[in-house]
């Protein structure tokens, strides 16, 4: 786990409780709204229902219509109006409900959210958090399981992060809301119900840093969001086979923590990246390339990508064949020449 400490907000540290990632995200938004009256929350079904994943549960009742509101069902409208609100001094936190439903907002995000600070020479910052539940492994119907991170990481001006556990979910969302930069906050749906015992408010590693979740000596296995659990399971399985895997949780996809990952790769000399998104042009391509450029002479083998296939996300009965598994990862690592 990331190093945990009480968040320095003046808020009293609460007794430890078992929290799901969804509950931790809920607490992060709530605490941010208590601490900062400019934080507002809106999107589809985030009001009385509390969001389709209940991440905003209870917030409408606590803060009322002026700060928590259901919006019309239109994602460009949600992001576009958030831009205007941020221009007027608010800190909007908006929800896209599902990864593939963020695409109507693509123009507002890419042409305005990402560029406003730059085109106005810093005069109009946009402190907006766009929460996007993403990825699969939940038996979702079509358009409910996309991994859309590469669209956002390819866009200068955006900060793109993805927590893998409840502690990071809380800490990273608090930091994202406090940031003056727009943040694409990608929440792995399959991890919403994962639990941890937390004393909130908790502060883990800084938002822009990767962490070594498990130390190892033979291979650096890089993951983020939903595949961190897969990577940890792979390391457990490998240990039984005598292979020592170091697992890195990237946490921040943009910026990429070259330092933390570089140190690990130069130590192990072998690296692989795991993600659910398709391989071609995917986020792993950037990771493999930059690690190779910067660490070529330390590498004993080419960097591997263990990812979803280059196909649209499959239907529920077929997703198990699509998602990277520990066996598939270990099989890939075994293709390296080990001397």
């Amino acid at each position, binding site marked *: 786990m990331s190093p945990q400490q009480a968040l320095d907000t003046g808020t009293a540290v609460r007794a430890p409780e078992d929290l799901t990632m969804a509950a931790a995200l809920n607490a992060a938004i709530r605490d941010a709204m208590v601490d900062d009256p400019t934080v507002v929350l809106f999107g589809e079904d985030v009001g009385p229902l509390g969001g389709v994943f209940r991440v905003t549960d209870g917030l409408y009742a606590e803060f009322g219509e002026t700060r928590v509101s259901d919006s019309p069902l239109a994602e460009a409208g949600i992001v576009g109006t958030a831009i205007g609100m941020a221009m007027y001094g608010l800190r909007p936190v908006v929800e896209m409900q599902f990864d593939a439903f963020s695409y109507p907002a693509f123009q507002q995000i890419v042409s305005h959210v990402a560029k406003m*600070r730059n085109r106005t020479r810093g005069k109009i910052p946009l402190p907006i958090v766009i929460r996007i539940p993403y990825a699969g492994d939940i038996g979702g119907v079509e358009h409910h399981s996309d991994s859309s991170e590469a669209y956002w990481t390819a866009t200068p001006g955006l900060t793109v992060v993805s927590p893998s556990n409840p502690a990071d979910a809380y800490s990273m969302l608090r930091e994202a809301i406090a940031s003056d930069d727009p943040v694409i906050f990608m929440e792995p749906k399959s991890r919403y119900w994962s639990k941890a015992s937390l004393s909130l408010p908790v502060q883990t590693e800084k938002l822009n840093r990767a962490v070594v979740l498990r130390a190892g000596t033979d291979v650096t296995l890089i993951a983020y969001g939903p595949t961190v659990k897969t990577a940890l399971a792979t390391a457990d399985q490998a240990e039984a086979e005598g292979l020592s895997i170091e697992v890195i949780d990237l946490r921040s996809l943009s910026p990429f923590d070259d330092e933390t990952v570089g140190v690990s790769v130069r130590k192990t000399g072998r690296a692989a990246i795991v993600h659910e998104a398709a391989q071609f042009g995917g986020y792993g391509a950037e990771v493999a390339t930059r690690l190779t450029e*910067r660490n070529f002479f330390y590498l004993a083998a080419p960097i591997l990508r263990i990812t979803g296939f280059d196909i649209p996300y499959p239907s529920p009965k077929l997703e198990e064949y699509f998602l990277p598994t520990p066996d598939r990862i270990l099989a890939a690592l075994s293709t390296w020449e080990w001397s």
Partner: protein
Amino acid sequence: MSLNVESTPLTAVLAPPPLRLIDDTGQAVAENESGGFTLPAVDTLLGLYRQMVIARRFDVQVTALTRQGRLATYPSALGQEACEIAAVAALAPQDWLFPTYRDSIALLTRGVEPKDILASFRGDWHSGYDYHQHRIAPQATPLATQALHAVGLATAAKLKRDNTVALTLLGDGATSEGDAHEAFNFAAVWQAPVVFLVQNNQFAISVPLDKQMACRTIADKAIGYGMPGYYVDGNDVAAMYAVVSAAMDRARRGDGPTLIEGLTYRIEAHTNSDDPTRYRKAADVDLWRSRDPIERLEKYLVAQGALTEGVRASILAAAEELAATTRDCMTEQAVVDPLELFEHVYSTPRTALAEQRAFLAAELAGDALASAVATEKSTR
């Protein structure tokens, strides 16, 4: 075969006459035909006339500079002065304006210096004025996107209980965009203090309005969103000012948004890279030149005895002075710093950008070796 309906579009058949307070001949319309709006006072109209004349001189000057190759591009608003000036005149100091690329004269009228307006068109940076000082958002290039920003800002002002209203300018083509629909709908549902002013200049680059929509008027769409809509003669600054002012008052009272369509005409090409002879007749342009918004008001003001030769001369002198200022600001050497490219992307410095900045700095210093070393270091 055409995808467009072959029958005569409804727009041609059923469009009502637009609301006007001063007709083509410069006569005030009868009170019972003025839609309940009052003709603004002569002093107000004289002020609007002055601003229109100055704005046109600026527009003509900038178009000339563009033809000389001294600006990258300039979308002219020639012929649309009544809409542009009425919009700005109706704003209170605390209000926000959300303009498009075609609305440079609105910026000018709200007090932005020519050199700051031209910063983007001469290519210094994407946008170049003080947004908070003037309360003007950056000019939007993607169509209709700024309408949503206006709704968001207006909603934020409402949440903060400020009496700020947002006014956004749109073109007729932009109303085909999904963002326009979403903005109209969000504004009405949230009862946002916002005014949408669509300048129907009848062309989206080359495409005429009857290929954008099949309804009578853009203003008619307002009823579908649950807000009032007004179809106004966009070359009658008196009507435009009266209707926009009423809509601003309505928004300020907390009664929600209004959609206004100003029927006007884009006399110039879309930009200097356009060739309008391919899609419209010279006779049509001549017809609309004869409906000039400035000449119309001039006839009225002269008849009222408000526009004397002395007043006219002083206005023209002010316009010439502004044209000279505009030319002068082109001769100033714009300071562009390549290293500023990295300055405003993120509030938190990024290592990768610092490396790329160092690379460019070394390259600029003409130091190929240092540049290579910077690259090499950055790959370590």
